């Protein structure tokens, strides 16, 4: 499919969704917030000072801060965990069960327990969110570390490559696809947990806005906040992750670049 066709399909899907939404809002006004009402609410959210005299970007910024700080922590902790599991059989047999147990703990439980332990402030968020996403990152990186190519390691050893060179030139490039996959799943899980934390424990952020307008039964405004954050996540994907991924994976054979096949 060429660029233009793909672009057209994207536009068509957006138009269809908006049409369905509009129809839904007209036929089921109790359930679906109307499209025009949502648009008006979105404009209000975007242009007027919000609660506590803050514009919408204060809340978005707070959510982003908590989300990305947690992502950084989880990516580091999860990568270390996953690589340790993938490279050491002893650790794998000792820890594997516990990693699965950790994954099985509902995020809501982690959030509530954090609140009891730490209190109703941002610190519980910074504690709970990494705790929820780290095992997902770990699971991904575990798979990646298990698939590291021993032949390449042997080649590096033969030529006498040091630790740093082996790490940057051999290990990291093989883990790169897994790092991207981990980050994407961590981002999508992390944002849901961040919202949960903000809605239940805090008084700022996008999650808190949901809670606030939920209390007022204001569906169009809740919808506006959802749209703002979903747009942000799409921008992150298409503006940052996808181009970066493409750059890092530049060496992969593409249809035209291939000269001869094996």
């Amino acid at each position, binding site marked *: 499919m060429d660029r233009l066709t793909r672009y057209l399909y994207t536009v068509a899907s957006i138009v269809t969704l908006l049409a369905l939404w509009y129809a839904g809002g007209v036929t089921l006004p109790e359930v679906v917030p109307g499209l025009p009402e949502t648009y008006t609410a979105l404009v209000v959210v975007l242009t007027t000072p919000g609660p506590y005299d803050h514009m919408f970007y204060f809340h978005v910024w707070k959510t982003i801060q908590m989300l990305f700080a947690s992502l950084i922590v989880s990516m580091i902790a999860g990568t270390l965990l996953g690589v340790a599991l993938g490279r050491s059989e002893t650790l794998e047999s000792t820890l594997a069960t516990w990693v699965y147990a950790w994954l099985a703990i509902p995020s809501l439980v982690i959030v509530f327990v954090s609140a009891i332990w730490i209190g109703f402030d941002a610190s519980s968020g910074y504690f709970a969110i990494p705790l929820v996403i780290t095992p997902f990152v770990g699971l991904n990186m575990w798979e990646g570390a298990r698939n590291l190519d021993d*032949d*390449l390691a*042997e*080649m*590096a*050893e*033969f*030529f*006498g*490559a*040091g630790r740093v*060179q082996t790490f940057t*030139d*051999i290990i990291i*490039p093989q883990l*790169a696809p897994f790092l991207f996959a981990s980050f994407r799943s961590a981002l999508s899980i992390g944002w849901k947990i961040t919202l949960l934390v903000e809605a239940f424990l805090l008084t700022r952020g996008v999650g808190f806005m949901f809670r606030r307008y939920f209390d007022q039964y204001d569906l169009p405004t809740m919808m506006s906040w959802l749209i703002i954050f979903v747009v942000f996540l799409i921008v992150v994907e298409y503006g940052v992750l996808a181009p970066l991924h493409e750059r890092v994976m*530049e*060496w*992969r*054979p593409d249809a035209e*670049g*291939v*000269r*001869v*096949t*094996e």
Partner: protein
Amino acid sequence: MTAAEEATVASENGDESGETLELRNIVKTFQKPGQGQILVLDEVDLDVEAGAFISLLGPSGCGKTTLMNVVSGLIEPDGGTMRRGGRDVSPDDLSLGYIFQEPRLLNWKTVAGNIEFALEARDVPEAEWDERIERYLEMVNLADEGDNYPTRLSGGMKQRVAIARALATEPEIMLMDEPFSSLDEITARDLRQELLDIWNREEKTILFVTHDINEAVFLSDYIYMMNTDGEMFARRDIDIDRPRQYDDPDIAQREAELYKEFHEQVVD
């Protein structure tokens, strides 16, 4: 000065290139799940004469790669010695290049980047990199591919990059583990010819593993033969004038003789 005297002087100076590398009684066992200990190298002897083209011939699984890994230092043998010029040597003392059974290139680095990887690992001064990359890529006829990625090269081209990578570290002895066995015969013949040219010109010593008797006879000065019990059961010289031709009846005859010897080993 006689050649013998020269050799003595050379070894007194600690320069043992020009001397034969002698492996004696090399033993290696592996632990295999379900099969217990298996003896892969059973007191193997091997002489690597300086400047010679030596082939190691044997059926699949007989321990050829294992022996190469012992020479290269990638695995530690359970027993045996490596000597040169009358003294014990370890793989670290040798100047070695290794062309593995697979190209083992870094797909995320360009062809030139792959060679740089080896040069950096070997602590070659950065000022020499460009010159060496150019020189050795040209030697394997890949002068224009320096900026290309390995994923966009054919199997034969990848193997050439692996050869250039090994050559670029300017080793004295090249270990080559079935480098052409996954290639079609037409490509393999071209590469064999190129390899012989390089061997001649650069005065390398080559230890070449293969399970193809014809290839071994065509390339080698002498051939070691291994059986599946991990024994090196024979050393045979190939006294056929170079340059050799594939359709030379002498080659066909020598090949038939060696095949017969192998066959008798299996029947016994």
